[in-house]
């Protein structure tokens, strides 16, 4: 049961296709696990369709040659078959995250960041950064505030901060002003996808010193 969902503005921006790649990755991976947000996204796509119909009514026509050019391209190929139904995967990392990593959790190339916490940066465009975090059960993520927006999607285990608990499929949306100290809950070690459009501000002196080297 997923309790923490995407915001309307993130869904609209994902639908419009204007988010940085790292955010697209977090949004798409959440939707892979959440039919509620899958349906909400489809309704935002419907808004895009409605806007398109509106524009089509009062926009300039295409070139005279466009139709014949398109028809000749269509004649040159045959339509694809309807894809057959696929079973839903039971991996820890759903698509599209799995493809970015090159496999499930055992394919992740972790780097230790101290205190048992590990991370792996996932290459995306430079407008935002994405990384996987591995936090052993019972361990706290260093206390941090935020410069920009941060999305944290739980893939395994759970974490809790002062206000709430986040389990598999839940996504936390934090922005400027959010200061919190998430702690991985007892039981399974916690794995999350964390995405930021600005570097985190760690409050302790040592984490702040280490920040430029860790790339977080």
């Amino acid at each position, binding site marked *: 049961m997923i309790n923490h969902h995407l*915001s*309307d*503005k*993130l869904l*609209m*921006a*994902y*639908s*419009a*296709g*204007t*988010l*940085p*790649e790292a955010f*697209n*990755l977090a949004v*798409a*991976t959440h939707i*892979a696990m959440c039919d*509620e947000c*899958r*349906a*909400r996204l*489809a309704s935002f*796509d*419907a*808004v*895009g*369709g*409605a*806007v*398109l*119909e*509106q*524009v089509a009514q009062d926009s300039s026509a*295409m*070139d005279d040659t*466009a139709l014949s*050019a*398109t028809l000749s*391209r*269509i004649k040159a*190929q045959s*339509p*694809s078959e*309807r*894809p*057959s*139904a*696929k*079973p*839903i*995967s039971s991996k820890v990392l*759903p*698509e*599209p995250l799995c*493809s970015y990593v090159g496999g499930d959790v055992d394919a992740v190339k972790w780097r230790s960041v101290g205190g048992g916490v590990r991370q792996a940066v996932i290459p*995306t*465009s430079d407008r935002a950064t994405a990384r996987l975090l591995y936090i052993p059960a019972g361990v706290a993520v260093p206390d941090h505030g935020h410069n920009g*927006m941060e999305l944290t999607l739980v893939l395994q285990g759970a974490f809790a901060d002062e206000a709430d608990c986040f389990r598999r499929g839940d996504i936390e949306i934090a922005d400027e002003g959010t200061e919190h100290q998430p702690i991985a809950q007892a039981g399974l070690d916690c794995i999350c996808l964390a995405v930021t459009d600005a570097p985190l501000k760690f409050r302790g002196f040592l984490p702040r010193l280490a920040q430029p080297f860790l790339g977080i």
Partner: protein
Amino acid sequence: MKSGADHALAEECAQDVMVTVWKKAAQFDPARASVATWIFTIARNRRIDMMRKDRRPEPEELTWGPEAEPDQLDVMTLQQESELLISAIANLPEKQRVMIERAYFGDLTHSEIADETGLPLGTIKSRIRLALERLRHSLS
């Protein structure tokens, strides 16, 4: 498509979209999207490919096979909801309507989009949710 593409590029993009629509017609699920919505998603994806900046990965696909044809009532109500949505957007206050158009033309970043969109999406979302539940049921 606007989105800063010049005329020739927009023309090429539009042709690509029509060819893709024809090629992928069998994948269109009328219980989950209107034709305009489906064309919008193809056009958006083509535009992102042409800009070569930020990739836009898609969620794991929920496909329906030949054994799970979409329910005709689902299809009909979804198409009706899509028509209602068009008139609802046309009737929004000017400021909200312009914000939504600018968001979909790619002129706004996610932080510039308003928290409250004013869009009445509850009903269409519930319809799609039902169609998804039927699909999940047929897959299990």
